[in-house]
C-alpha cells in the first residue's frame, strides 16, 4: 500500500515545512551559542543531568505539572492538549504497527490510518485500539473545549486576564481548534461509510448513518479528510512563527538548563531558547501590579517576550517593569524573565567612557574599623533611624564596626545595571570591592536589599560574608549576643522584593519580629508579597503611579489591623510611610527600641 491520497498533501507539505524551519532554528541557535555555553553542553552531556532533563520534559512539556499548581483546571487543559495529542501520536503508531506488523509506513499513513485502513480485521471484534484512540481523542477534545471556554470565561481557570495575540498566533490557534473536531468528523464519517470505529467515532458514525443518506455521506467523506489535513497543514506552517514554537523550544531548553546554561546581563543566543519557549499562556499577567493597579496592558512579561521575539521591543516596554519577580515566580516554563528584561535594556551605548567615574579614584569616606563592615546604602541615608538603630545594635553587641558610607559612599552599581549600563556599573563594583578588601572585613552587613543582591550576585567577595541586617540581627539574637524584650505591639511585615524573592530571605526577618512582638501577615506575603512600587528597576511609571501601587499594597498591610508596619528596605519604608500617612519602622528600629542593654 502506498498510503497516499491527494488530501494528504497539505499535511505533508505543512509538516515538512515545519520540521525544516524548526531544525533550522535549533541549529542556528546552537551554532551561535557562545563558546562558554558550548563547553558547558559538552561537559554536562553525559551526566545524570541529562536523565533528569528527560524526566522534566515529561513532567513539564507533557503533563504541565507547574500549571496544575497555578490552577488545576488550567493544568488539565494544557495537559489534555499536550499529553493527549502526544499519546494520540504514540498510540496511533502502535496501532499501525499492531495491524501491519513491523513495516515502514509513511507519516501520513499513521496520521490518517483510519482513512487508509477503515476496517481492521486483525484483532477481530475487540476494537481495542479504536476505543483507546477514541478515548484519547475525547481527552484532547475536552482540552479544546476548555480552551474555548477559557477564551470566554478566563476567571473560571483562575486567570483574570488572558493574552492578546498576534496574527500568527490567531491563525495557528484557529487551526489548532479545528484539528481535533475535524478529525472527529472525518473518522465518524469513515465509520458511517465503512463501519467500525470506537465508542465515540463508531457511535457518531452509526448515528450519521441513520440520519443521512449514503449519497450525502459519500459526498462529505473526502471533504472531511481534506479539511482535517488542511487544518493540520495550516497549523504546521504557522507553528514555528507562532507561540506554538514553544512546543519545540521548551524541550531543548530543559536540557540546556540542566546543562547549566543560563542567561546573563549580555544578550546571547541562549536567550532565543528562553524567549521562544514562552507559550504566551498569560499566567504572568495577573500577578503584575502594573496591570492590577495601573491597568497597563502591554508591558507584562508575555508581551515583553513577544515583542522581543518579533524584534519590535520598544525601550519603554523594556524599561516598564518593576522587576519584582512576581511573574517569574509563577511562570510555568521557568523563564528567567528578569534577566532577559535586563539584557534587553543593555541596548544603549554601554561602553563606558574611559574617564567615566574617574572621580572615584582615591575616594574613601569610611570611618571606624573592625572585622564587620556596615554599608548602609544610598537610600538608607534618607532613613536615618535605620542607621542609628544599627549603630545602637552594634554597640550593644560589642561589635567593632567599619562604617563604609556613614559620610556618603559610592553606589553599589545595581541601579546602573538595572538601566542596562552593566559595563559602567563594573567601575562601581571594582571600587567597592577594593574598598571592602582594603579595610579587611570578614562580614559585610547592609541595610539595603538592593545592595545585598548585587553584593551577592555580581561582586566577587570571597572570604567576606554578605548579610542583610535582618540576617545579622537574627544571628545576634540566636547566639545570645543581644537580648530583646517583647512588647505588646503587633507588627505586619512587608517582604521587600529584593530581599524575599530576590535573595530568598523570608524567615530571618520574621524570627526577629517574633522576638520583639507579634507578627501579622498581609494577604499577599512571602513569595507572593506585593511590590511597593518604588522599585529602581522601573523608570517609566511616574510618581503618581508609584503611589497608587504603594497604596494598594499598603492597604493590605493596614488591613491586618497591626499597630506598626515593619519592613526591611529603605525604599519600601519610604513608599509605605507615604501611603500609610504615618512612619513605617524598620526591623532594626524595633530591635533597637527593645534591646536590653
Amino acid at each position, binding site marked *: 500500500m502506498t498510503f497516499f491520497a491527494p488530501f494528504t498533501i497539505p499535511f505533508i507539505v505543512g509538516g515538512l515545512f515545519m520540521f525544516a524551519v524548526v531544525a533550522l532554528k535549533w541549529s542556528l541557535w546552537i551554532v551561535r551559542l557562545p563558546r562558554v555555553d558550548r563547553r558547558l553542553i559538552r561537559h554536562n552531556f553525559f551526566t545524570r543531568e541529562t536523565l533528569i532533563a528527560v524526566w522534566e520534559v515529561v513532567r513539564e512539556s507533557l503533563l504541565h505539572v507547574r500549571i496544575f499548581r497555578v490552577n488545576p483546571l488550567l493544568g488539565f487543559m494544557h495537559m489534555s492538549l499536550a499529553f493527549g495529542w502526544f499519546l494520540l501520536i504514540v498510540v496511533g503508531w502502535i496501532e499501525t504497527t499492531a495491524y501491519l506488523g513491523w513495516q515502514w509506513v509513511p507519516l501520513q499513513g499513521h496520521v490518517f490510518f483510519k482513512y487508509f485502513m477503515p476496517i481492521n480485521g486483525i484483532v477481530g471484534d475487540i476494537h481495542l485500539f479504536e476505543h483507546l484512540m477514541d478515548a484519547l481523542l475525547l481527552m484532547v477534545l475536552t482540552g479544546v473545549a476548555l480552551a474555548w471556554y477559557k477564551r470566554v470565561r478566563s476567571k473560571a481557570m483562575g486567570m483574570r486576564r488572558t493574552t492578546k495575540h498576534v496574527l500568527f498566533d490567531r491563525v495557528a490557534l484557529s487551526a489548532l481548534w479545528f484539528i481535533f473536531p475535524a478529525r472527529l468528523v472525518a473518522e465518524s464519517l469513515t465509520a458511517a461509510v465503512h463501519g467500525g470505529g470506537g465508542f465515540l467515532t463508531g457511535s457518531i458514525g452509526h448515528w450519521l448513518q441513520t440520519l443521512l443518506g449514503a449519497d450525502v455521506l459519500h459526498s462529505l467523506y473526502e471533504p472531511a479528510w481534506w479539511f482535517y489535513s488542511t487544518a493540520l497543514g495550516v497549523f504546521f506552517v504557522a507553528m514555528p512563527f507562532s507561540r506554538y514554537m514553544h512546543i519545540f523550544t521548551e524541550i531543548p531548553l530543559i536540557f540546556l538548563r540542566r546543562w547549566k546554561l543560563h542567561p546573563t546581563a549580555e544578550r546571547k543566543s541562549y536567550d532565543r531558547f528562553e524567549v521562544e519557549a514562552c507559550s504566551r499562556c498569560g499566567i504572568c499577567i495577573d500577578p503584575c501590579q502594573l496591570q492590577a493597579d495601573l491597568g497597563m496592558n502591554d508591558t507584562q512579561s508575555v508581551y515583553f517576550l513577544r515583542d522581543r521575539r518579533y524584534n519590535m521591543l520598544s525601550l519603554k516596554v523594556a524599561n516598564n517593569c518593576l522587576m519584582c519577580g512576581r511573574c517569574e515566580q509563577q511562570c510555568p516554563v521557568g523563564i528567567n524573565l528578569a534577566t532577559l528584561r535586563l539584557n534587553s535594556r543593555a541596548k544603549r551605548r554601554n561602553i563606558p567612557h574611559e574617564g567615566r*567615574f574617574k572621580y572615584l579614584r582615591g575616594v574613601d569616606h569610611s570611618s571606624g574599623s573592625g572585622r564587620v563592615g556596615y554599608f548602609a546604602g544610598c537610600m538608607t541615608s534618607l532613613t536615618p533611624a535605620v542607621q542609628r538603630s544599627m549603630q545602637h545594635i552594634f554597640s550593644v553587641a560589642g561589635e567593632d564596626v567599619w562604617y563604609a558610607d556613614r559620610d556618603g559612599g*559610592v553606589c553599589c552599581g545595581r541601579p*546602573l545595571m*538595572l*538601566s542596562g549600563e552593566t559595563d559602567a556599573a563594573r567601575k562601581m563594583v571594582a571600587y567597592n570591592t577594593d574598598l571592602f578588601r582594603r579595610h579587611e572585613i570578614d562580614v559585610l552587613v547592609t541595610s539595603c536589599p538592593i545592595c545585598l543582591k548585587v553584593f551577592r550576585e555580581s561582586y566577587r567577595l570571597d572570604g567576606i560574608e554578605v548579610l542583610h541586617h535582618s540576617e545579622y540581627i537574627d544571628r545576634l539574637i540566636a547566639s545570645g549576643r543581644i537580648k530583646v524584650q517583647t512588647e505588646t505591639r503587633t507588627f505586619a511585615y512587608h517582604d521587600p522584593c529584593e530581599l524575599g524573592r530576590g535573595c530568598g530571605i523570608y524567615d530571618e526577618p520574621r524570627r526577629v519580629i517574633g522576638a520583639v512582638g507579634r507578627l501579622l501577615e498581609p494577604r499577599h506575603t512571602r513569595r507572593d508579597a506585593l511590590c511597593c512600587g518604588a522599585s529602581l528597576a522601573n523608570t517609566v511609571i511616574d510618581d503618581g503611579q508609584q503611589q497608587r501601587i504603594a497604596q494598594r499594597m499598603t492597604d493590605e498591610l493596614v488591613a491586618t489591623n497591626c499597630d506598626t508596619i515593619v519592613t526591611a528596605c529603605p*525604599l519600601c519604608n519610604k513608599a509605605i510611610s507615604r501611603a500609610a500617612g504615618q512612619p513605617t519602622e524598620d526591623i532594626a528600629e524595633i530591635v533597637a527600641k527593645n534591646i536590653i542593654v
Partner: protein
Amino acid sequence: MRNLNFGYGISRPRAIDMDNNDLRKSNAIIHEMPELQACIGCGSCTASCTAGGITDFNFRKLHTAVRRGEYRGAYEELNKCMLCGKCRLVCPRGINTRAMVMLIKRKLGDY
C-alpha cells in the same frame, strides 16, 4: 582669513542665548517627560546626590541648562551620575529624576 595668533580670541558670551540656542532637543525632552517643567529649583536632588558628594555634579543646574538649550558638556556631565535614585526619593515635585537622566542622555548622546 590668515592664521594670526592674537594671543586671545573672542570670549564666548556667558549669557544663555535663548535666541540662537537650538531648543529642538530640549523641547523633545520636555515633550517626552513634561514633568520636568514642574521643577521649582529647590536643589534637593543636588543636595542628596551621591555623586555630588564626591564630584561637582549638579543635576538641578544641568537639567535647567539643558532645558535652556545649553547642551555642551551635558552628556559627559551626566555620565557622572550613578543613577542611585536618591534624588527621586527626595524630589518634592515627584519628578522621575532617574528616567530624566536616562532620557537626556538618550537625546543628547550618540547612541
